[in-house]
C-alpha cells in the first residue's frame, strides 16, 4: 500500500508538470524559498533586519541612490560611493599643539556629481578643524571651523551641510547675476556647483568638471589629551547597491531580501488560515440551513462590521503588537471574506441530487460536508487565497505606516509605504516603488499560478481522457 501512495504522488506530479502556469508558480515559489534560506549570505548589510530603522547604521550610504546597473544604460555615469579610511596623515607639532593634515586626492571622471561627501573624524578632547576643497581648476572652497569637543566624539562634516554658503559664493562669481540673485544658498545644488565647470549656468545646469579634486582637512589638537583616533573620508555616489537606496539611505536590496520571509509568512499564513476557516464556515452555514445558518450569519455580520483599525489601536496602546499578533488579528478578521460567496455556492451544491443520494446512503453530515461539498469549492478557495496574499501583505504595510506595525521587522509593504509617504511617485524615484510592488505582485502570482494548476488537476471536468 505504501507503494500506492508514492505512485499517487508521482502521478500527481506527472499531471502537475503538464500545466505550464503551475510550473511557473512552483518555480517562483522555489526562488522565494531559496531567498529566505540564503538570506544570511545574500544580505550585503548583515544587520539590515535588526537595524532597519537605525539611521546610524545607514549613514554611509547615499540617499536616494540609483541601482548600480543604471550605469550600464546611461551615457553619463553616476559615481559610485567610495570610502577612504585612514588617509595619509602629516603631523606637525608645536609645543602641545599638534596639527594633523590630511589631503585626499579624489579622481573624478563620472558624468554626475557625487550626492554628498564628508569626513568622519573620531576625536577625543579639544580640537579645531579646517576644511579645504580644491578643484582641478584651482578654485578653492574653504571652511574654518572651531570645534570644542570633550570626550570621544564622531564628527561628521558633510559637504552639503557645511559648504553650502561657500559654494554659493563660488558659483555667484561665474553665474549670470540675475540668476544668481534669484537663488539663495539653500536652493542651489551644492554638489553640482562644487563639481561643476566654472561658467555661466553653474547654478542651473552645471557641466561636470573632471579631474583630480583634493580634500584637505587640518585637525589641530589643542592639548595633550586630545586624540585623533580615526579618520574616514566618504564620497557618496549616485548609485549604490543592486536596487539603490531609499530616502533614509537604506539599501533596498536588503529590504527586498529581508522582506521575502515576512511576505511569504504573512501571505501564506493569513490567506491559508482565513480562507480555510471562511470556506468551512460558509459551507456549514449553507448546508445546515435553518437556525444554525441564521446564527452563523449573525455572527458573521457582527465580525464583519467590527472595524479592525480601532482594535489594533487599542491593542497597541496596551502592548506592542508583534508580527505574529498582527497575523493572528488578520486571520480573525479576514476569514469573513469568502463566507458570503461560499455560502451561496453551498446552497446551490446542496440542491444537487448527489447530496441527496449521499444522504440516502446514510452519509453523516461530516462526510457530506468534507467529501462532497468542500471539494467543489477548492477552485474558489485557491482563487481566494491567491487574492488574499497581496491583500494581507499590503494590510500589514498600511498598519505599519500608522505606527501600529511591528517595528522589529522589515517588510515589502513597509518599504512601499515609506516610498509613497515620501512622495517617491511624484519625484520619479522609480527604484523605490517598482521593486517592492513587483515583488508583491510576483508573490501573488506565485500562489495564483499554483492555484490554477491545482484546479486543473483537481477539476475532473477539465480532464479529457
Amino acid at each position: 500500500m505504501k507503494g500506492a501512495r508514492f505512485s499517487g504522488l508521482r502521478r500527481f506530479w506527472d499531471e502537475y508538470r503538464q500545466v505550464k502556469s503551475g510550473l511557473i508558480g512552483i518555480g517562483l515559489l522555489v526562488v522565494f524559498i531559496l531567498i529566505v534560506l540564503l538570506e544570511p549570505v545574500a544580505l550585503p548589510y548583515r544587520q539590515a533586519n535588526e537595524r532597519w530603522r537605525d539611521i546610524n547604521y545607514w549613514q554611509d550610504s547615499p540617499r536616494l541612490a540609483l541601482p548600480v546597473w543604471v550605469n550600464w544604460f546611461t551615457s553619463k555615469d553616476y559615481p559610485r560611493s567610495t570610502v577612504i579610511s585612514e588617509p595619509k596623515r602629516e603631523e606637525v607639532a608645536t609645543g602641545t599643539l599638534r596639527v594633523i593634515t590630511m589631503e585626499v586626492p579624489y579622481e573624478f571622471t563620472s558624468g554626475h556629481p557625487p550626492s554628498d561627501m564628508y569626513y568622519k573624524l573620531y576625536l577625543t578632547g579639544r580640537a579645531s578643524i579646517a576644511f579645504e576643497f580644491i578643484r582641478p581648476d584651482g578654485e578653492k572652497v574653504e571652511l574654518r571651523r572651531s570645534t570644542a569637543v570633550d570626550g570621544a566624539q564622531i564628527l561628521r562634516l558633510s559637504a552639503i551641510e557645511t559648504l553650502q554658503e561657500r559654494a554659493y559664493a563660488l558659483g555667484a562669481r561665474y553665474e549670470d547675476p540675475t540668476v544668481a540673485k534669484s537663488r539663495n544658498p539653500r536652493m542651489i545644488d551644492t554638489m553640482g556647483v562644487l563639481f561643476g565647470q566654472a561658467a555661466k549656468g553653474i547654478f542651473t545646469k552645471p557641466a561636470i568638471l573632471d579631474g583630480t579634486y583634493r580634500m584637505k582637512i587640518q585637525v589641530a589638537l589643542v592639548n595633550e589629551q586630545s586624540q585623533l583616533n580615526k579618520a574616514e573620508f566618504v564620497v557618496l555616489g549616485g548609485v549604490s547597491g543592486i536596487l539603490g537606496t531609499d530616502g533614509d539611505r537604506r539599501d533596498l536590496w536588503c529590504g527586498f531580501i529581508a522582506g521575502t520571509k515576512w511576505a511569504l509568512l504573512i501571505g501564506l499564513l493569513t490567506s491559508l488560515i482565513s480562507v480555510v476557516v471562511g470556506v468551512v464556515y460558509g459551507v456549514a452555514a449553507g448546508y445546515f440551513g435553518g437556525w444554525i445558518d441564521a446564527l452563523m450569519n449573525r455572527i458573521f455580520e457582527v465580525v464583519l462590521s467590527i472595524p479592525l483599525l480601532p482594535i489594533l489601536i487599542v491593542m497597541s496602546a496596551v502592548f506592542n503588537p508583534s508580527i505574529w499578533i498582527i497575523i493572528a488579528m488578520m486571520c480573525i478578521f479576514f476569514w469573513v471574506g469568502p463566507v458570503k460567496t461560499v455560502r451561496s455556492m453551498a446552497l446551490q451544491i446542496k440542491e444537487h441530487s448527489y447530496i441527496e443520494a449521499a444522504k440516502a446512503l446514510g452519509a453523516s453530515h461530516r462526510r457530506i460536508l468534507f467529501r462532497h461539498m468542500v471539494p467543489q469549492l477548492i477552485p474558489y478557495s485557491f482563487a481566494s487565497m491567491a487574492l488574499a496574499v497581496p491583500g494581507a501583505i499590503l494590510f500589514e504595510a498600511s498598519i505599519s505606516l500608522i505606527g501600529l506595525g511591528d517595528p522589529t521587522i522589515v517588510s515589502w509593504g513597509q518599504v512601499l509605504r515609506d516610498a509613497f509617504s515620501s512622495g517617491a511617485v511624484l519625484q520619479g524615484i522609480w527604484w523605490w516603488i517598482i521593486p517592492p510592488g513587483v515583488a508583491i505582485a510576483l508573490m501573488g502570482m506565485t500562489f495564483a499560478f499554483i492555484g490554477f494548476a491545482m484546479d486543473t488537476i483537481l477539476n475532473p471536468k477539465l480532464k479529457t481522457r
Partner: protein
Amino acid sequence: MTEPILVAENLTKWFPVKRTLTQITRGERTWVRAVDGVSFSINKGEIFGLVGESGCGKTTTGKLIMKLLDITDGRLYMKGEDVTHIQGAALAKHRREVQMIFQDPYSSMNPRFTVRDVLMEPLEIHKVGQNLQEREVWVREILNEVKLSPPDEFLVRHPHMLSGGQRQRAATARTLMLSPSVIVADEPVSMIDLSTRAEILSMMRQLQRELGLTYVYVTHDLSTARYFVDRLAVMYLGKIVEMGPVGVVIDRCLHPYTQALIGAVCEPKSGRVNQIKDVPIKGEIPAATNIPPGCRFHPRCLFSVPECWEEVEPTLVDVGGGHMVACRRHEDIEKRGAAARTSDASLGVRRSSFEA
C-alpha cells in the same frame, strides 16, 4: 410466496409554509399537503408503480419510504417492523434495506468522484467488508452485474465520461452495493435516450429476478409504467385515487382522473389524429396548500355531482381482483361511460366554489 415487504398506512407529509406576520398573530398556519394519507401494501418481488403528474406527491412518497423526509403522520412498515420514526442504528439498517435510483443520472453522482469512489462510498459509510480487498472484489462483481465490463475500464472514469445509459447503470450499481431489498426508482429512464431505455429497464428486470428485489417505480410516463410495472397506483394531489394490476387500471380505468390521464397519452400509431382531442378534464391543478373539500378532484371532474364536494372524501374501494378506486360514482361511470358526465344544465347551477 408473496408476503408484503413494504406497507404504508395513511402516510402523510405536510410541509409548513412560511407565515406572514398577520398569520402568525392570528395563529394560522398553512401547510403544503404534499402526501395526504397514502396507503398501500407492496409484496416481495413486486414492481409497484406510482404514477401521476407533477405535484401529485409521488416523488415525496418515494422519499418518505427512503426516510429522506420525516413522516408527519401515518405509519410505514418494512418487513413487518414499524420504521416510522426510527433513528440511529435502526435507521442505518433501514438505509441498507431501501435504496434509490435518481432521475438525473448526471447530477446524482458527484462529478469529482470516479466510479470507484461512487461505489466505494456506501461500503465505507456502513463499514461493509473486512478490508479493502473484499470491497474491491464486491465492487467488481456488482459492476459485472450491471454489465459495465470490463470493470477496470469503468472504475477510473468520472460521470461525465460515461453515456447516459452507462451512468444510470453505475447509479444502479451504487444502490446494489448494500444488498437492499427495496429499490425506489424515481424516473430512472426519463432522461435517457429512447433507444437505451429498454436496455436499462431490461437490466433492472433481470436484477430483480436474480436478486429478488422489490421496486417502487415512480414516473409520470404511463406507457413505460405499463411495460415495466406489475401493479400501479395513480396519485392526485397527495392521495391515491386508483390502484391495481397495471393492465386493469389502464384498460379498465374507473376514476375520472385516470381516464383523463389515459386520454391524454399519445400512441405511436397512425390514424390517431384528434384522438386526444377531448381530454376529459377541465381547469388546472389547485395549489397543494388549498386542497378542495370533499373529493379533491371534483373541481376538474366532468362527472362531479354535489355529493362529491359536500360529503366526506371518498376512500379506496375494492371493485374486484385487487382493483381499487376512490370515487363515489365509479359504478355509474362504469355502466354508463361518457353518458355519466354531468353538465350545468342537467343539474341546475349548483357548482362548487372551487371550480375555475
